[in-house]
Each structure stands twice: as C-alpha cells, then as structure tokens.
C-alpha cells in the first residue's frame, strides 16, 4: 500500500462481514447462548417437571470399559448412574435430530446460495410478515435479510450441536438434569436449523408465503394417474425433486408424468408444483414401492427405508440416490453423461445410481421414467388371492409375526383365515398396519405378509383420494394481532399443534378425530409433516376432508398445515410472535423472557401422536424450553423419559406476581411438559387440560374448563376430580356447571385465590412489596 507518508509492503485487507445494525431493537441479555447460558431457566422447568425415566436397556455399552450393568443403583466404570445415562440417551437423540435438520438446511442453503446468490432477499410473506425469523431473532439476536445472512446463523447452530454432542462423551457431563438442560439447548438449536431451512426454501422456490388459502393438493394412492410414467421421491430435501419438476417444465412434460412424494418431500413438492401429489406419510413407503406404482424411485434424505433399493428392485423400478447422506452403496455417476446413466438404469445394468447434482437427477429421472414405464408391468406385483391362500397354508403358526409386530396385530389369525379362503381378517389389518415389514423378517417360512395385507386392502388403497392443504409456511403478523389477545386471555381455548410422524397405535383415524374435535371447539389447529397428511386422509359425513371443512387461517376453528418438518419452526415462531407482536415483549436475544411469557400465557400444546424419530425428539425439546407441553401417543413412551408435574405437590406450582413480587400458587397449569398418553380419548382430555395457563382471565379459564369438563364427562364418563386445582375465583366456573363445581369445591375445601401477572423470573417483578 502506498500513501503520501510512506509505502507498506505485504499489507492485505480482508473484509469478512459488514455488520449492518439497522435493526434498532436493543440487544437482549442472551444473544447466541451457549449450552450453559439458559441453564437457570431450564432448571426452573426441570424442577417443576421432573424426569421420569424408563430405561430401555439396563446397560451402558458406549465405551470399552463396558458393558456396564446399571441396575440396582449401580454405577458404571466411568461413574455414571442410570438416571444420567438415561438423560444422556435423550441428549444423544436430540443431537441426532438437531444435526439432521441443520445438516439438511446447510445442504439446501449451500445449493440455494450458489444458485441465487448470497444477496438474494428473504421473503416469507411479503408485507404480511415483518418478523421473518422469530426464532433466529430471539436466539441469535440477528435479523436476517438475505440468504447470506442465514449462513452465520447456521454456523452458530452447528457449533452448538457439536458442543452438545461432545457433552455426551464418556467422562463429560455426569448430572441427569444437566444432560436434560443440554437436550433443551440442542432442541432450541434444532428450531433454528428448521427455521433457516424453511425460510430459505420459501424465499427462493416460490412456495406459498404465509397463505391461509394455500391450495389443496391431491393426496393418496388413488389420485395417481398410473397410465403416465410415475416418479416417486422419498425423504425431506426437495431440491432433487425441484430438479425433476424444472426439467419437466422446461421440456413441456409437466402434464406427461406424475411426480409424487412420500414423507416431507411430498409436502414440499406440492408447495413447488401444483401437479405434485402426496402419496402419504412415511409408513406408506413399502406400500407404494412394493405396489409397483413407481417407475423411478428418487431417494433424498431422512426417514428413507434403508431397504428401499431392495424393495424397488423387486418391482424393477430403478433407484436414484440424491443425497451424500444416503448413498445406498451405489456408484457415484454425478460426472457421467446423462444418456449413459439413463441407458444403464433402463437396461438394468445399473439398478441404482448415486447422482449428487439435482439438475442431473431431474433429467435422468424423467428420461428413465419415460423409457421404463412402458416396459414395466404395473399392478402385477402383488400376489393374487389364490396365491395368498396357497402360501398361507404353509404357515407354521409360530406367532412370530404377531410377536414382532409393533402393533401386536393378530396376523396369525388372519393368515389362518386366508389359508381357509377368507381375506377379511387380512383386510382388517390394513388400517392399523404401519408398514414396517417386521412380520416378514420374523416369518420362518418367508411369507410376504405385508404384501398379503396390501392385496387384501387393495380396494381401500386404490380408493385413497383425499386432499391436503399445501403447506402455507409462516403465520402472518396480522393473524397474530387478531388472535393474540383472545389466546393470552384464554378466550380462544388453545392452540393444538398436531405434528410428527405416523407411528400410530391404531391407524391414522385418531389424528383426524382429534383435529376435528378441537377445530369444532374453536381451538386453533396447526398441522405439519406426516401428521398433516394423515389429518387430511379421512372425510366427514359430507365427504369433505378436514382441509375442505375448516379454513386455513390461524384463527379460532382454523386447521392450517404449515408444511414439512422444517416448517414446524413456524409453530414455535407463532408462539414467539404472540409475545413479541401482540404483547410487545422485546425479542432480540431475549430468550428467557419470551419463554416465560409463552409458558405462562400462551395455551399451546403439541401432539405427536405417531412420533418415531430423533428429529421429533429434538423438535419436542425445542418446545419444552419454550414452555410448550408436548404429548406423544403410546409408542412415544419409547423416548424413555417423560417430564411430569405433580398436581398433588402444591408447593411445586408457585409463580411470582410481577405486579407485587408476591408468590402465588397457580395450581398445576400446565400439568406436564412431556407425557405419553395411551388412547385417543386420553389425548383429547389431556390436550384440553394442558391448554390451561396461569394468566387465563376468569372468562378464559371458564371457557377452557368447560371444554375440559365436557370432554372428561363424555370420554371418561365422570366429572374431573381435580377441578378445585384450577378454579381461582368463582368467576372461573362455567355458569352452566356451577352446581357440579360447587359440590367438588366444597368437598375439597377449596379457597379462593388471586389471578397474578405470572412469571417465573424474579427480574420481571416490577415493584417489590415494601
């Protein structure tokens, strides 16, 4: 560098990032928190909702000192006890989940930045959305404006996931509650990973932008025109499917092929392409591949059956793996000429290939599908009824199919009936079967039991013609303004988020029934992921699906699908926006105050009726830290740890009254932070109860209690016995139930109390009493 005063040799300037701090909101106390920053907040929750551990394994097998027997209070070679080991497994699950969403987002963002540039502006709802990234603003203190801004946020998320994962190494953390706190932390990070992923794809790919009236997408196997070549995409990363759809559009083939999706990729296909079809949730994977409907199977990432290739090969469907995370053992053909790859797939010389270029995936998939479709024999892949009868006669009645079935389905009885010529019992299993295929793995005579069930249920399968509302993305700021007050005051009785996977205990109808019940009761019902598909898979008496029956607004009585897994962030985002937009609580780097607000005021409950994955664990953990209770269906017990309050311990339920600093007992609201429920009926009653919040006005509490009592009486056949815990003044009592309440209140020696301005944070107290 040469100046008037001299010459400096070997002088370099590097500009890493120019900080544009035009966001005038002052920075809050905890921007970019590390895993101990919010520990005090976590402990407030964890001391109220203590873990109940149900270890799936008596041992720890994670290091070579082991295996260590941790039964009977014994500690392992490293000194760990069973409570800490159990919470360590929870942390590991949440780390896997957060890493999966964040890695998906990183992969997608890298692609989008390359394609659109780092200065590409974010837009997830135009003028309807000012708070574009509520979780990112809250946690990181960053207001992202461009795709490039998101990378910094992901850098932080990746660092924190690594830190949390490191804490699970042998000889690091040793206290169970600290493990739990770290699980909360990585859950919060998971929400960041999801939020960044969805706002990146919504901004760039033309998805609906916070649209209440997003269109309806056709859903179900029966909606697929199998006279056309069918390309089926499975997984969560829509980018390869975008490559397919773009190629079709560019070559005037948009009407000539069917592009269908399973699991979250399906949601995002329909957000991108109005002719895209949703086949169904993750559990339909085996059905659709084995049914031979797909001419080409494209695998991206997450929730893909690891035997998808073997299954596709059985029906002569070529497979394209499109993700580095899921190479399937295929040769990497990314740099080979398209026509060579197509020729190898069509001829069967290469039954599967790895292609890591989404545009090339698109061209190859379309060309292969068009060539393969005429020569594949569709619909001939399931056994004929006579064949089922014949094969069923070889059954040895060992019961291993039933004993391997997660649902304990009475398969032996159905096989016996099939051997005698009746397919009715097999057909009866169709609805409850989750399509895992464990029955076949266990069968000593190798009966294709899942195929038998599919064949017996074929008519039902082909009649699956439903609608799912296309994932709308975020909730508009104006919607938040409209409902903020009635939510916080309790007049809208609650927000029910029905999310997660499809490991349902008795088929998907429960999900539909629960959503419909609460939509009819004027709760706000939000759906996402596989649960959103299942919610749309049944019809009312007028033949309407849930999404046709109810509006898609974030309003009382609305049923709105936010989209794929990563769109779950918009549900947390909506709760955060209630605190920020409606209540004007500062957002920037101000996690604890916002979580305290949501916990005490926003009557939201998550229900993951069929949750199965580590991602679902991480999503739940993010909600726990925000103070939102989560329910799981019976299979969710396998997460092995619940966070349960004790309504019988009065001392656990004190809050500060922010007006005076007085401690006020508000009763067990919400009673639990994470709970498994056993039946649909129990889920409904529990949802109504978990929507109670300390801040409810008397009018709001009265409305919420009337729903709780009504559901309890109808489904349990008895008045709830814990009503005295929820009534603060007689004004809380629903007027029509005064006599019944009065009797219980008298029996329980109930005393009137005050309705505080509730907080768990001493620093939020405005004026301490003299």
């Amino acid at each position, binding site marked *: 560098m040469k100046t008037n005063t001299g010459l400096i040799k070997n002088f370099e300037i590097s500009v890493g990032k120019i900080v544009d701090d035009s966001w005038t909101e002052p920075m809050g106390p905890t921007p970019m928190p590390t895993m101990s920053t919010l520990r005090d907040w976590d402990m407030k929750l964890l001391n109220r909702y203590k873990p*109940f*551990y*149900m*270890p*799936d*394994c*008596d*041992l720890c097998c994670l290091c070579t000192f082991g295996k260590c*027997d*941790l*039964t*009977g*209070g014994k500690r392992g070679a490293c000194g760990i006890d*069973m*409570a800490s080991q159990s919470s360590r497994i929870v942390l590991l699950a949440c780390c896997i989940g957060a890493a999966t969403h964040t890695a998906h987002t990183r992969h997608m963002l890298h692609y989008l930045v390359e394609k659109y540039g780092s200065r590409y502006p974010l837009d997830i709802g135009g003028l309807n959305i000012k708070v574009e990234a509520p979780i990112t603003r809250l946690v990181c203190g960053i207001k992202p404006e461009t795709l490039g801004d998101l990378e910094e946020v992901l850098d932080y998320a990746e660092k924190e996931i690594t830190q949390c994962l490191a804490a699970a190494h042998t000889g690091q953390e040793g206290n169970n509650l600290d493990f739990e706190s770290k699980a909360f932390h990585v859950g919060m990070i998971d929400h960041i990973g999801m939020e960044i992923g969805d706002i990146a794809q919504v901004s760039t790919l033309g998805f609906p932008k916070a649209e209440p009236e997003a269109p309806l997408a056709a859903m179900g196997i029966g909606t697929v025109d199998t006279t056309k070549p069918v390309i089926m995409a499975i997984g969560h990363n829509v980018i390869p499917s975008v490559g397919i759809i773009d190629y079709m559009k560019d070559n005037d083939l948009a009407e000539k092929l069917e592009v269908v999706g399973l699991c979250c990729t399906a949601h995002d296909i329909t957000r991108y392409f109005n002719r895209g079809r949703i086949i169904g949730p993750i559990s339909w994977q085996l059905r659709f591949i084995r049914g031979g409907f797909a001419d080409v199977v494209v695998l991206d990432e997450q929730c893909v059956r690891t035997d998808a290739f073997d299954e596709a090969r059985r029906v002569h469907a070529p497979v394209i793996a499109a993700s580095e995370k899921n190479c399937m053992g295929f040769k990497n053909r990314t740099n080979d000429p398209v026509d060579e790859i197509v020729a190898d797939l069509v001829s069967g010389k290469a039954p599967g290939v790895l292609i890591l270029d989404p545009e090339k995936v698109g061209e190859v998939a379309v060309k292969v599908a068009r060539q393969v479709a005429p020569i594949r024999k569709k619909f001939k892949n399931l056994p004929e009824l006579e064949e089922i009868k014949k094969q069923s006669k070889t059954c040895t009645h060992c019961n*291993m199919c039933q*004993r*391997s079935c*997660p649902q*304990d389905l009475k398969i032996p009885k159905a096989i016996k009936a099939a051997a005698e010529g009746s397919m009715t019992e097999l057909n009866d299993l169709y609805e409850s079967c989750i399509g895992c295929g464990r029955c076949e793995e*266990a069968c000593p005579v190798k009966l294709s039991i899942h195929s038998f069930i599919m064949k017996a249920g074929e008519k039902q399968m082909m009649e699956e013609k439903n609608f799912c509302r296309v994932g709308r993305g975020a909730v508009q700021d104006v919607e938040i303004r409209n409902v903020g007050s009635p939510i916080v005051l309790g007049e809208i009785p609650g927000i029910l988020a029905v999310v997660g996977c499809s490991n349902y*205990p008795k088929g998907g109808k429960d999900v539909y029934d629960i959503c419909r019940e609460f939509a009819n009761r004027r709760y706000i019902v939000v759906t996402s992921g596989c649960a959103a598909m299942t919610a749309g898979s049944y019809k009312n008496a007028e033949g309407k699906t849930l999404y046709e029956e109810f509006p898609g607004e974030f309003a009382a009585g609305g049923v709105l699908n936010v989209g794929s897994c990563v769109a779950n962030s918009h549900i947390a985002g909506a709760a955060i926006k209630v605190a920020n937009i409606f209540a004007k609580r500062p957002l920037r780097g101000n996690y604890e105050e916002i979580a305290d607000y949501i916990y005490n005021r926003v009557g939201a409950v998550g229900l993951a009726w069929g949750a199965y994955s580590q991602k679902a664990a991480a999503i739940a953990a993010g909600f726990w830290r925000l103070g939102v209770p989560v329910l799981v269906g*019976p*299979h969710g*017990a*396998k997460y*092995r740890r*619940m966070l*349960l309050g*004790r309504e*019988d311990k009065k001392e656990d339920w004190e809050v500060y009254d922010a007006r005076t600093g007085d401690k006020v007992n508000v009763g067990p609201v919400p009673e639990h932070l994470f*709970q*498994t*429920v*056993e*039946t649909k*009926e*129990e889920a409904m*009653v*529990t949802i109504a109860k978990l929507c109670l919040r300390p801040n409810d006005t008397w009018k709001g509490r009265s409305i919420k209690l009337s729903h709780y009592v009504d559901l309890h009486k109808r*489904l*349990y*056949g*008895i008045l709830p016995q814990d009503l005295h815990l929820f009534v603060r003044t007689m004004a809380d009592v629903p007027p029509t139930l005064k006599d019944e309440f009065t009797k219980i209140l008298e029996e329980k020696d109930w005393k009137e109390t005050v309705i505080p301005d509730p907080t768990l944070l001493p620093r939020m107290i405005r004026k301490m009493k003299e």
Partner: protein
Amino acid sequence: MSCEPWQCAEISATKKANAIQKPEVAVALIKKAKRPILIVGSNAAERCIEDKPLIDFLIDLANASKVQVVATAHMVGEFLKRGYQPAGFMSAMDIGNRLVDPDWQGIDGKGPHDLALFVALPYYMEALILTGLMHFAPDLKTMSLDNMYHPHASWSFPNMTLEEWAKNFKVMTSKFEGEQ
C-alpha cells in the same frame, strides 16, 4: 408356557422376571403384600376372554382380593359403567411416576404401596413402565397379570393362551373368595 418376552425385541438385560407358573403363587404373593395396587390399562375393555371382556374378570378379581384399582387412560368410565368404583384414575405415566417416589403415600394416602400389579396396558408401554420401576423404585415389587411374559417385572405370568389366562383369573378370584 413360554418365558420369552412376548414382543421379541423386549429383551431384558441382567434381570428377568420370575415366572409365575401357577395362579396360586400369584395369590400368595399378593396376600403377602401389605399395600398392593392393581393398575388397569386401556386394553381391558377391548380384549375378550371366553366372550367376556377382560375388565369383567378384573372387577371380579378386585372385588374378591380387595386390591385397590387405578384405572389408566379413559378406563375409569368402563369401570363405572359396570358399577365398580376404582380407587383412582390417572395416566399410566402418572401412576408410574408416583410409584417411584418413596414419599408418595399411595392412592388412598395411607402409605406407600409395596406391590404394583399391572394388566392390559399396551405391551410396550407396560414394559417401559416396569423397567422404570425396576430401576427407580427399589422398594417396590411388580407383577404382570397379562398373558404375555414381561421380563422387566419382578414376577410375570408366562406367555399363555386365552383359555389358560381365563382359568388363571378364575382360580385367583376363587382363591381370594374362599378366604372371605
């Protein structure tokens, strides 16, 4: 009768439930307990034995043995419909969580329970609750009355046919009735 976990992967590790080969043994164990409690899950109204709902067998047993019943999920209504008043009702997770608390004074407030009998929960849920109790409720014994072997209990009936199961309930009930 097999003493393998009914769901094959639900294997135990270092401990395995003692098998109850005769219903008389179960009766003796229940009688020996000072504060037994019977936890009845949601399958009680769905499962039938000899064309009779399982819950009817359980009510007979509860009446004869005087063991207090806690109904989980929505089962309280099924009991009430049949004229039986359970001692309490709560979620399966809640009763599990209370049983690991040594200070919990029981469903009637008269002291901690020393034996928890489980029946009719989904197999995997019951297995998990039993393992939680095995690890974190050292002073509590557990018993499964299902017809599916539960390795995480202290005592469990083996896998058995519906006929054998019905017979066991009848024998147990009659043994308790005989004492009255």
